[in-house]
């Protein structure tokens, strides 16, 4: 079971691999669309990669609620609990 710092670090690696955003920029308060320029299709890929990495299920209707990196980390953390 990963803590939130580890989840953030792993998620940052995924975002870097898929969307080409430097991992260091993937901070908790950053918005995927507005700040990191991640488009909707890249977001789908990030979600699928995160599901595999963290062993959680992130339904389509939840994805739109994950505006910031922090939202995603919180969701993954609670889904793992």
């Amino acid at each position, binding site marked *: 079971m990963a803590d939130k710092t580890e989840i953030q670090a792993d998620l940052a690696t995924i975002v870097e691999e898929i969307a080409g955003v430097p991992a260091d920029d993937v901070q908790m308060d950053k918005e995927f669309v507005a700040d990191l320029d991640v*488009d*909707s*299709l890249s*977001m*789908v*890929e990030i*979600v*699928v990669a995160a599901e595999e990495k963290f062993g959680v299920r992130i339904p*389509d209707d939840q*994805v739109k609620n994950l505006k910031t990196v922090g939202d995603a980390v919180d969701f993954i953390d609670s889904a793992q609990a």
Partner: protein
Amino acid sequence: MTALAPVAGATNTAILGIGSYRPSQVVPNADIVEAIDSSDEWIQQRSGIKSRRFATDEESVQMMSVASSRIAMERAGIEAAQVDGVIVATVTHMMQTPAVATMVAHELGLHRPVAFDISAACAGFCHGVALASDMIRGGSAKYVLVVGVERLSDILDRTDRGTAFIFGDGAGAVVVGPSDEPGIGPVVWGSDGEQQDLIRQREDWREVIASDNPRMPHLVMQGNAVFRWAAFEMAKVAHEALDRSGITADDLDVFVPHQANMRITDAMARSMKLPERVVIARDIAEQGNTSAASIPLALDRLVESGEAKSGDTALLIAFGAGLAYAAQVVKVP
């Protein structure tokens, strides 16, 4: 008890020739951005599409089918008298009956072949190749034309930001026949009707007629959900098709996925871990998504450019409304 004669068909089948027809009107992104308040850059980033082709009135489903079939037959070295089957995959033949396959057969001068249309949307061409191969191996036919053809411009909502930039028109055809060596591997196919709403005609024709302002029931699509299904679930189907043909991704020369969206192709290639040297069809950049026509159009482009050579091992995978899918490994004709 009366015994029936045993069935005798060919042991192996192959694609013997391929042809395609690209409609005459080239439509660059610049011509469609205004109606969807978009830009060339946005479209290319979301889909990899630079332009598509729209058919003129003269370039009908039948006309494009016949044109592509003639090329496929000539390249296969098969005469009209030899072809005893025609399968046309399309969702845009606006005459619900009779099947356009019968009209195509007649115009080609074929002699009373079995001829029918199939409705498997974007997956139609791979369904047709599988059916043709099984018909020949089952002794029900010898040389079968398989055509994928669409005029999606007829059912396109030009103001819908989700679909207007994606779809285009065209046709591709192959001749399937018996061969010495296996040239068409086992098909892996299926459907997931639970997701039938993701891509569909907006409304039933009877609802259209009953409305005050009847208009073409356009194609509607939930792009992100389709992307997720196609990019990831279909990669698993692709691997299954390789397994069933007894090969691995390392044995592949060419990958021809349905040209749905360049981003889907890229994501599939990534999740399949295809070796770098595998040639990936990217016909969508100039052709848009032509549904049932996209795979033969894309394969034909690779053959004509020399990127795919006769005898190369190619993986075909198609997926779309239904959600229906089909994949098989074939030898390039």
